[in-house]
């Protein structure tokens, strides 16, 4: 909200500079987002001038050369000013900008030669000064009803609001009372202690009771909590005076005519929006407030036809709808230049209802923004009082007897106990009871002493915001000043901060991959349905049981990702394109599947996934050049799970997005499903414009569950082990793991370890077969083993391998 500071100072002037006002408002809860300079600059260059002579310019039909008295000592010659306005005349008092003056748009005025005549300044129009729309030409000060003498050379700023600082305020949603200048003035009063002038609505020229010739019926009091109206006769429509126009412009509104400007001015001052009807155009002189019918159409002021529903409220006369309540007036009853009778409406609408209608219809205005925050019915009275005074003053209007006042019954004020001890307990610092009383009174609460504190009666305008003791404590705290609150630490009884086991191991897993040179990405949790197709998932795939966003920003973000592969491949593609072909990325994050719990929560799991492409090692002057493949991904997975102390097995198995011959499922010791490892299906790689790529993904929750809680020392024997190698030719169908399992079973405990250290396929071993070289390590607990000791074990091993179709290699 924009508040011209001069306007604010009219009600509360703390004799502080703009920066102090800004600081005090900000630190008491009304944040000043910015301070704008509005209007002219180099304000001393703007003065009153008296036009002494006006002569026709010799070389230009439309220009006049004026001699203008700009004051100063008696021997100073009048200034020569060239003026193009048709209405300039000798004897006028005018507004003059002298060279060096800075106009509202920021341009600086210079002496200029106009068709051979040097002009020592400029005679100004209202719009040039930011004081309203242009009339016939220059602004003639004598025509204004200003209570002042116009001495030549007098500072113009003393007469007209040609420059002001404007505060841009952030008003929190609990403070609709601060959506008007007077509400902000009360805050400034409380925050600085500077006196607050009486409310602008204290003088009300109006009277209660029925109004002749106008009637209002409210059919939906649940959505219209009050409807007030007054009628004015003999209204003459015209432009607003400069002081009023200047305030509207500074506050960000465009002056239109005196009646409309009055409604806007009253809103800016009191926060209560108003609407002016031309009563002669209200058919039947009667307004009805009712819910719209579903699908009912209304043509609004902007020329659009709007379709309403039964949650929306409209105002109609005998000829049908004239406006949408709180949002926009209708063309038919708009105030026009020939308007003579005006009905001024001030109503209280249901805030959430206006918010909804405004959002659904795409209609937002200064008025709807205020209504939706929830104004109080008392504010209607405030607005009517201020408006009536201005209508009489500025429009020559006559106020008809009475005030229409429908759908309202006063509510009693609430009184709340504020315990002194509670203030201290919440804030951590005491605030004297006298100070509490002072603060609450400044905020318009009535206070009486109570045994253990104060009884505070909540003013009407604050009744929605302040309903409990804690709300009073907030009032005390923010006005007393949060800077007085000491920085202490909690007692921390029973607080022992730590990470959970899962959090610690998750970090360890991520660090293991970082330590192996991978870069972590942060992908979108969203994905689109096309991801599922690009991953070649069949209709019944479990990953298709996705969580759907009901109101996504786009189709591409309409699902919650069921896998990390999408974001990993997106990042891989991005980086191949921008940074070269070598990819080593991982992500650690949540994936989602439809849950089956009654509360509708998803099945969320934390997964860790990686994607590799291009060379395993970064490019080097002596690189080995190996490309990332199934085994590169599996080696990483081994390191990752090894770091967590979790054993696993891979089994030939595939998923639609993986290369069917180069992929495996990853399972824990007891068959727990950890995830997958494999090369991407070539069609999937192609879909992301990637060359060969390998990936893995594991469910960290399942992995961490399998991790040992505490590692206990395992003694290692001091006797040396005996190492033997064995090479066996096996049919391709026998997996390495099968051979190893057979060796283990045959050897028993004396076999400490067995690993594959070479694989050979080729002519020497024949088609459909391969040679596995196994490194065997034997160890006994207390003795050094010899080849002879092991000979029987080795025989059993050989037999077991032969059972698998193996043949020992020479």
């Amino acid at each position, binding site marked *: 909200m924009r508040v011209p500071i001069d306007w604010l100072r009219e009600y509360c002037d703390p004799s502080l500079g703009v920066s102090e006002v800004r600081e005090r408002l900000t630190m008491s809860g009304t944040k000043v987002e910015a301070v704008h300079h509005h209007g002219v600059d180099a304000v001393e260059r703007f003065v009153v001038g008296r036009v002494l002579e006006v002569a026709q310019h010799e070389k230009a039909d439309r220009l006049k050369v004026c001699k203008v008295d700009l004051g100063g000592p008696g021997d100073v010659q009048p200034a020569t000013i060239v003026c193009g306005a048709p209405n300039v005349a000798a004897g006028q008092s005018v507004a003059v900008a002298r060279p060096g003056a800075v106009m509202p748009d920021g341009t600086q005025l210079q002496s200029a030669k106009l068709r051979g005549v040097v002009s020592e300044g400029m005679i100004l129009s209202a719009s040039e000064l930011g004081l309203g729309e242009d009339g016939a030409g220059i602004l003639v000060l004598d025509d204004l009803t200003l209570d002042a003498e116009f001495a030549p050379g007098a500072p113009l700023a003393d007469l007209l609001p040609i420059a002001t600082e404007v505060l841009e305020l952030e008003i929190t949603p609990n*403070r609709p009372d601060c959506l008007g200048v007077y509400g902000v003035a009360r805050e400034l009063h409380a925050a600085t202690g500077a006196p607050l002038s009486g409310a602008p609505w204290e003088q009300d020229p109006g009277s209660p009771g029925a109004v002749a010739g106008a009637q209002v019926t409210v059919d939906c009091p649940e959505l219209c909590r009050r409807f007030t109206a007054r009628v004015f006769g003999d209204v003459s429509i015209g432009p607003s005076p400069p002081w009023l126009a200047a305030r509207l412009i500074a506050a960000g509104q465009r002056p239109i005519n005196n009646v409309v400007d009055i409604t806007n001015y009253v809103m800016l001052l009191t926060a209560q929006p108003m609407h002016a009807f031309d009563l002669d155009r209200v058919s039947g002189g009667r307004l009805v407030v009712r819910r719209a019918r579903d699908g009912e159409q209304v043509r609004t002021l902007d020329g659009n036809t709007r379709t309403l529903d039964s949650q929306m409220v409209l105002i109609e006369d005998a000829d049908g709808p004239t406006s949408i309540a709180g949002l926009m007036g209708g063309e038919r009853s708009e105030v026009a230049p020939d308007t003579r009778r005006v009905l001024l409406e001030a109503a209280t609408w249901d805030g959430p209802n206006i918010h909804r209608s405004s959002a659904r219809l795409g209609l937002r205005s200064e008025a709807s923004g205020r209504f939706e925050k929830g104004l109080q019915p008392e504010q209607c009275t405030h607005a009517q009082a201020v408006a009536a005074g201005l209508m009489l003053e500025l429009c020559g209007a006559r106020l008809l007897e009475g005030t229409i006042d429908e759908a309202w019954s006063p509510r009693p004020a609430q009184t709340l106990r504020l315990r002194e001890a509670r203030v201290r307990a919440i804030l*951590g610092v005491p605030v004297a009871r006298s100070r509490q009383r002072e603060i609450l009174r400044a905020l318009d609460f009535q206070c009486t002493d109570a045994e253990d504190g104060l009884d505070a009666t909540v003013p009407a305008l604050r009744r929605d915001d302040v309903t*409990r003791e804690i709300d009073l404590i907030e009032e005390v705290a923010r006005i007393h000043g949060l800077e007085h609150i000491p920085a202490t*630490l*909690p007692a921390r009884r029973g*607080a022992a901060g730590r990470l959970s086991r899962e959090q610690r191991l998750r970090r360890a897993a991520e660090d293991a991959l970082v330590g192996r040179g991978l870069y972590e990405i942060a992908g*979108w949790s969203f994905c689109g349905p096309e991801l599922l197709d690009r991953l070649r998932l069949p209709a019944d795939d479990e990953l298709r049981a996705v969580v*759907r966003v009901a109101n996504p920003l786009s189709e591409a973000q309409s699902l919650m990702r069921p896998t990390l592969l999408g974001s990993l491949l997106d990042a891989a593609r*991005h980086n191949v394109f921008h940074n070269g072909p070598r990819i080593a990325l991982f992500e650690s994050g949540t994936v989602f599947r439809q849950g*089956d719990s009654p509360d509708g929560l998803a099945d969320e799991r934390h997964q860790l996934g990686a994607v590799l492409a291009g060379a395993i090692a970064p490019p080097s002057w002596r690189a080995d050049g190996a490309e990332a493949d199934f085994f590169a991904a599996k080696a990483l997975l081994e390191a990752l799970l090894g770091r967590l102390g979790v054993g696993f097995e891979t089994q030939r198995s595939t998923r639609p997005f993986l290369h069917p011959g180069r992929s495996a499922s990853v399972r824990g010791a007891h068959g727990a499903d950890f995830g997958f490892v494999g090369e991407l299906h070539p069609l999937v790689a192609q879909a992301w414009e990637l060359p060969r790529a390998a990936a893995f993904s594991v469910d960290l929750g399942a992995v961490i569950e399998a991790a040992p809680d505490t590692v206990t020392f395992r003694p290692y024997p001091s006797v040396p082990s005996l190492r033997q190698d064995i090479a066996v030719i096996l049919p391709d169908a026998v997996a390495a793991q099968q051979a190893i399992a057979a060796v283990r079973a045959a050897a028993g405990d004396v076999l400490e370890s067995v690993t594959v250290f070479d694989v050979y396929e080729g002519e020497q071993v024949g088609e459909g077969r391969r040679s596995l070289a196994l490194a065997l390590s034997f160890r006994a607990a207390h003795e050094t083993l010899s080849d002879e000791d092991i000979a029987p074990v080795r025989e059993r091993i050989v037999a077991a391998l032969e059972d698998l179709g193996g043949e020992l290699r020479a």
Partner: protein
Amino acid sequence: MIERITELREAAEAQIAAAADAQELEELRVRHLGRRAPLPQLLRGVADLAPAERAAVGAAANQARQALQAQLQAREAQLQAQQLGTLLETDSVDVTLPGAPPQPVGRLHLLTAMRRELEDIFVGLGFTVLEGPEVETVHYNFDALNHSPTHPARAASDTFYVERAPNTDGARTREARSAAASQRAALPTSGEYPSDVVLRTHTSPMQVRAMEAHPPPLYVVIPGRTYRPDNDATHTPQFQQIEGLAVDEDITLGDLKGTLLAFARAVFGDAREVRLRPHFFPFTEPSVEVDVSCFQCGGSGHLRDGSRCPLCKGEGWLEILGAGEVDPNVYGYVPTTEANAPGYDPERVQGFAWGMGVERIAMLKHGVPDLRLFYDNDLRFLEQFG
């Protein structure tokens, strides 16, 4: 006789010192200390000498032999060292070539690194780290956080709603839902929203979940992803927050200030100050926004050359988070059960809560100019942090 020994010794010493290689040294050893060499022969002849001469000559000869042996060894070591030196001289590499094979550095994403840094700070302050669901119920995301039934944040323009999975529409579920619905029957706009499940718009729903699961005193932080339907230069539809919640019998606004001061100094430097500014949130009262003094200009608002500080835009303060004392109404949404007995009676417990944006803090601390860089995952970004 003694003179003869001295002569032999001096001659041998000179030759050994001049020896050029190991072979020559071996020849000298044979020549001077070998079986037939004069000095050992002389020693062997000592027994034939007169007793008076015997001791002196024997000692001198022995001494000479030992000295020569020592000198031979020393000279041998010297020659070996020279030889190695020559060898190493020729065996040199271009030390300015890059290491090989190259070891990629590997990094955590900045958001992970930042989140961990924050977690560790709060763990140090006695907070335990909790996590919670990202798909959340309207109950925990809004209702239990004291949002009015018509609060604007509930609008579909401000919150992502999640479609109910068909398999949660079973009879049992319908009963539970109609019970919940009857509780909300008073709501003027129930049915206005697409569903009763959302993508959490903040980490705050874990406040009530945490209080349901644990008795007071409670000190927790909750990091995690959050979602809102905004997408522009200053908003991404997905972002990360860290929630803080401390509830005990006597946790004051001052304790909030002190805790956040400790946090601000840990993240932004020991010279930082924090200030609380009154604000409004539905689930805290009093509510504050928290600013930290600008670390680029030291809080003065201008740089050394007098120009306006570009980081805080001359304000001297940077807004970093929203916080406040937990609104008593929120405790009202925490049922007392066996798990959290004696429960959360607002007349008996009080505490504070905050929510901070991980991206915001990372941007401030590391000068990241655009939120979207976090989710582009470009290696040129990823390689810089973490």
